[in-house]
């Protein structure tokens, strides 16, 4: 690709009638849409071309090899640290695997042994040997015709640069940790480890020298919905931190230090994008009723942090269907006090009143180990002492939380949700403890909502099997699909050898959901769904067809899901559901639903446009 120097007025908008100097503009590849106008922050990377060269003495060979080995070791440690930043629910969660790829590249014989033997046989210092080896490996990639695979040469360069930086005593790209608001990141290239450390809230756009559609920066920018242009070749040397810069991610145009006219024109373009986004946002504020009026669905948000409550409201959530409480407990030494918890729950309830807030009691164990609770090593934590099991064993912790929730319950519409119920005994034990806490409060003259509904998360297959029994004691069911898939299909989501089997449209899962809805309806209790499944448009016709009328999801999905529900009829949903139940494999069902969405709504983006 070539970078062309062009005049902005050739690109967009009406021709300005001015004699001013043409503004400097560059054309790259627009890889993630939207127009951003902000301040450049240039991130300089150490490149493989800058290293000291020295012929070492024969007796230096062992120590030079040891220096290389320890730098590789340190690089692996750094990558593991970065990977830890990408926790569950992080916007880059899906892309975390690339850090695994980089860790494997560090160990790869071609790189690791290759460098060591270059040190020994060529008597090159470690930096030199490493750069030579990386150069040889990347030139082998140059001959690959396929663009995506050829681009992977960059992954080995990133790895090499990291080790080189350590050998040369350079620190990591520090600026990334402290970006001012409205930053446009300008860089020769960004490694996945760099992007993982970026403060996303302050980033408006990316303008990058290297790469194309398939670079990781491009993929990440798209999933984070920020504008990005790559393949700009030399923008990182033309721009200085603090320069005003325009990035148009759909046309690939980047303008450096634009004049006021240019800024004005790009502001207009920006409007066009915002309007599309806003037209979708407008659906958030409308009720989710099918086009034939046959079905009205309550759409709520899953919330993890207090900050998300406002985002949920803006996106049209009609309450919080899943308020996770783990954040109160995680990353600290002492347990949160009743008072601290009460304040959080009260604020969540007040912010949503009169809409409901469903508070899920502590759900730790498996993947989010508490630092302040020593429950010993568990070889299979997903099936170990977690969630309600842990709460029933550590009753003091549970009672403190229940007290805080009950006290807060008078500040709005509060529902209590118990995770991981697998037997009626657990639910009965929970009811008893709840009754004890209520008695305590009554004796102390403290107010609470005596009718606060008590529901269970249906996420263990045994709970589906005994749903009729559980319905006697539960006031509502909430289907937690993430765990239900994991347990019913026997798939550890975080195990990369089997996660390809994970599919929300598995015929088994659809049948389990069907069963829960049937039993709940027969028993006259409300059934809702709060897993990731509920926020993916592809699943929506089936969920409605199965009779669900309450869905709780990631707030950002709400406008799109509402728009979809408002555009389809229950008849269509029932028909698609019937067809899905005749199919035998998840991919078949998924294919049918994706085709239907594309045919029915060609103007919308309900399914990935491949």
């Amino acid at each position, binding site marked *: 690709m070539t970078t062309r120097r062009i005049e902005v007025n050739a690109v967009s908008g009406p021709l300005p009638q001015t004699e001013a100097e043409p503004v400097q503009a560059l054309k790259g590849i627009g890889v993630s849409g939207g127009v951003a106008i902000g301040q450049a922050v240039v991130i300089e990377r150490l490149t493989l071309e800058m290293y000291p060269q020295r012929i070492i003495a024969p007796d230096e060979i062992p120590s030079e090899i040891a220096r290389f080995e320890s730098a590789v070791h340190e690089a692996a440690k750094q990558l593991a640290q970065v990977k830890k930043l990408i926790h569950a629910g992080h916007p880059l969660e899906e892309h975390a695997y690339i850090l695994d790829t980089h860790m494997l590249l560090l160990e790869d*014989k071609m790189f690791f042994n290759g460098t060591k033997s270059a040190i020994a046989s060529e008597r090159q210092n470690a930096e030199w040997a490493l750069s030579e080896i990386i150069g040889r*490996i990347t030139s082998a*990639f140059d001959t*690959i015709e396929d663009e*995506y*695979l050829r681009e*992977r040469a960059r*992954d080995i360069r990133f790895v090499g640069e990291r080790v080189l930086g350590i050998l040369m005593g350079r620190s990591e790209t520090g600026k990334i940790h402290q970006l001012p608001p409205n930053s446009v990141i300008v860089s020769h290239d960004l490694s996945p480890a760099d992007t993982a450390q970026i403060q996303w809230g302050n980033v408006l756009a990316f303008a990058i020298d290297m790469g194309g559609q398939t670079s990781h920066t491009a993929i990440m920018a798209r999933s984070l919905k920020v504008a990005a242009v790559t393949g700009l070749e030399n923008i990182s040397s033309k721009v200085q931190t603090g320069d005003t810069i325009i990035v148009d991610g759909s046309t690939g145009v980047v303008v450096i230090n634009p004049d006021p006219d240019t800024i004005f024109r790009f502001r207009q373009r920006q409007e066009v994008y915002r309007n599309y986004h806003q037209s979708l946002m407008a659906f958030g504020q409308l009720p989710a009723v099918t086009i034939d009026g046959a079905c009205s669905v309550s759409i709520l948000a899953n919330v993890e942090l207090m900050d998300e409550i406002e985002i949920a409201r803006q996106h049209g959530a009609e309450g919080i269907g899943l308020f996770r409480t783990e954040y109160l407990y995680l990353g600290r030494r002492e347990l949160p006090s009743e008072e601290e918890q009460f304040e959080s729950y009260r604020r969540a309830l007040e912010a949503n009143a009169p809409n409901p807030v469903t508070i899920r009691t502590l759900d730790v164990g498996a993947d989010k180990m508490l630092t302040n609770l020593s429950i010993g090593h568990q070889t299979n934590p997903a099936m170990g002492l977690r969630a309600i099991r842990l709460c029933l064993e550590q009753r003091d912790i549970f009672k403190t939380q229940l007290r805080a929730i009950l006290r807060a319950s008078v500040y709005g519409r509060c529902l209590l949700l118990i995770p991981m119920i697998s037997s009626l005994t657990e639910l009965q034990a929970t009811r008893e403890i709840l009754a004890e806490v209520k008695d305590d409060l009554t004796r102390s003259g403290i107010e609470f909502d005596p009718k606060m509904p008590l529901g269970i998360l249906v996420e263990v297959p045994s709970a589906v099997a005994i749903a009729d029994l559980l319905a006697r004691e539960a006031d509502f069911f909430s289907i937690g699909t993430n765990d239900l898939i994991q347990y019913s299909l026997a798939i550890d989501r975080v195990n990369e*050898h089997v996660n*390809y089997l994970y599919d929300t449209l598995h015929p088994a899962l659809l049948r389990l959901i069907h069963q829960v809805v049937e039993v709940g309806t027969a028993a006259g209790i409300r059934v809702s769904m709060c897993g990731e499944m509920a926020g993916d448009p592809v699943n929506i016709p089936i969920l409605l067809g199965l009779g669900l009328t309450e869905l709780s999801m990631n707030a950002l999905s709400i406008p799109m899901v509402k728009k979809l529900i408002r555009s389809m009829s229950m008849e269509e949903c029932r028909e698609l559901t019937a067809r899905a139940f005749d199919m035998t494999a998840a991919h078949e069902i998924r294919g049918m639903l994706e085709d239907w969405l594309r045919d029915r709504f060609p103007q919308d983006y309900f399914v990935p446009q491949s």
Partner: protein
Amino acid sequence: MTNVVEFQEKTLTIPDGLGLHARVATMMVRAMANYMCNVTLIKDDVEVNARSVLGLLLLAAVPGSRIVVRAEGPDSVEAVETITRIIEHDDNTQN
């Protein structure tokens, strides 16, 4: 148990999508940690070790490529099965 060294060979076609890309290569190298046998992937006249991410990427196996998987060792049957599964079930979305 017999001491006969087992030998397995199978030809696979890379499905539509991005080819034998970084995610698949990473999964494959990780999966190979569970096996003792030697596994090589062969495309045209290039032969690479299934335990090397770089090797797998350099194989440049684009969709439609025919790959020979060759395994030698006591658990070669299972290893070839695993590789087949990883290649054939790749969801081919991003990356």
